[in-house]
């Protein structure tokens, strides 16, 4: 049961932290239409996170007397207990970095949810099926922007290359299964992430080619952090400090 809970929380944390990051753009987008688009993606991801947290809360509540809710999970855990991959906690940087982070992650989520739809856990399968519709759009939107920036101006090309340089190192983690992912895959309620890699690479290859971007080299040590096991970059602590401030300052309150 512990593994199933961790697996579900991991899926939720990924969506929440990226949703939170994207929502930092709300009000500050490069043009109103895209401000709306990135806020929309933030909303979709926070919605996915809520679905996974709510399910995790019911799983936990079966084995503990403590009341657990989506909010206790999001607001009352410390960084080391968050199981999101380090890619999603990276800072927004400029529009190029935000776009590339979204593209890498949406492509990953797209293949992940495609498989998770067939989970033998009906609840996870249902959330994946519903979320896949949203992620399909996120992937299209972020792919188009990678192409636009890669094939836009000299400056935009330079900026997206810098983003590749910053973020590529965080992508290896996506496909290296940690303990709860292995158990989840073995038991048929989760996805073997190592199997997603070739589809994901092909997608990156296709979009980068259209964007006239060189494909980054795969290196031996393509894992910098291992957030899925609680080994996060420095950024997550600050995200949580901000996000959890009210719940921590005024404990046991209704909002």
């Amino acid at each position, binding site marked *: 049961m512990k593994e199933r809970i961790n697996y579900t929380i991991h899926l939720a944390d990924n969506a*929440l932290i990226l949703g*939170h990051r994207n*929502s*930092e753009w*709300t*009000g*500050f*987008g*490069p*043009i*109103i*239409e*895209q*401000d*709306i688009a990135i*806020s*929309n993606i*933030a*909303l979709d991801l*926070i*919605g996915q*996170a*809520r679905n996974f*947290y709510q399910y995790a809360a019911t799983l936990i509540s079966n084995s503990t007397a403590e009341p657990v809710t*989506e*909010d206790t999970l*999001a*607001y009352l855990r410390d960084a080391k207990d968050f199981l999101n991959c380090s890619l999603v906690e990276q800072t927004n940087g*400029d*529009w190029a970095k935000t776009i590339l982070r979204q593209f890498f992650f949406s492509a990953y989520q797209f293949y992940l949810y495609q498989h998770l739809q067939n989970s033998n856990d009906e609840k996870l399968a249902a959330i994946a099926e519903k979320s896949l519709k949203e992620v399909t759009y996120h992937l299209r939107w972020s792919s188009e922007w990678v*192409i*636009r*920036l890669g*094939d*836009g*101006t000299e*400056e*935009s090309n330079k*900026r997206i290359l810098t983003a590749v340089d910053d973020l590529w190192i965080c992508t290896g983690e996506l496909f290296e299964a940690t303990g709860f992912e292995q158990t989840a895959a073995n038991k048929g309620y989760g996805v073997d992430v190592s199997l997603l890699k070739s589809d994901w690479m092909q997608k990156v290859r296709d979009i980068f080619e259209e964007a006239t971007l060189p494909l980054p080299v795969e290196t031996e040590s393509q894992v910098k952090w291992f957030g899925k096991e609680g080994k996060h970059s420095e950024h997550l602590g600050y995200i949580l400090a*901000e*996000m959890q*401030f*009210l*719940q921590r300052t*005024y404990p046991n*309150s*209704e*909002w």
Partner: protein
Amino acid sequence: MLDPEKIFLDKVYEEIKIEPKDWMPDQYRKTLIRQISQHAHSEIVGMLPEANWITRAPTLRRKATLIAKVQDEAGHGLYLYSAAETLNITRDEMLDQLHSGKAKYSSIFNYPTLTWADMGAIGWLVDGAAIMNQVPLCRCSYGPYARAMIRICKEESFHQRQGFEILLTLSKGTEAQRKMAQDAIDRWWWPSIMMFGPNDDASPHSAQSMAWKIKRFSNDELRQKFIDMCAEQVKILRLTLPDEKLKWNEKRNHFDFGEINWKEFWNVVNGNGPCNKERLAARTKAHKDGAWVREAAAAHAEKRKSRAQKAA
């Protein structure tokens, strides 16, 4: 030959909407551009004080609702810029006017959002006052503006209910939460009733706008209606409005209220409010930082077009 001005005035009189291609007096066009663009800018600048709390919203539900609300405001800005564009001005020109300080936006957004309760007070009071101002605009004589306002008002009333519900939850909460809610109401009340603008005898554009049916009610009429409504609603919260003179007047059938500090009002309008500089700087920076993105998108679109032409 029929006099175009007579046709125009007849339409206004008959409550037939004026449409973009119709003849209209130059001053009518200018008044509308000023008002609609000011309204659009208010939506866009108005995103900032609330966006300030998105990353700190206290629950996932509140976080999602707040993002959706701020996103709605961006949408309102878009409809309104589009409505203004039908009067022969571009969005870029309007944005330039905002960034240069030539165009105004609602002064209310120059006040800071200091606590979570401000999200409630803004929804209840600021959106409440906005709705009071905007519902009559759904019947404005200019068609595109009236139609945009119908959509906007529907969403605004939803926002107002959400804001009130935030305050209601706080008012039923701990002592600290009740204090937070009262403090927010104390800070937002007077600026909100200033949103209706100067008293009728000091409102420079009002008479002509009423004649052209751009405006339907005077500033003071709307303000009174708003105060009457809030004076009742605040009782549900078991909190108070910060006005010792607020008292039901049976003869007038309205609440009496205290003197508005017009010095503060003009001070904020003229750029000296608590956050005027920050708000404008934030908008200008976002626009400037986005320049390379817009250029890249345009350059790519151009390349695509020329490649498609070569292929054809």
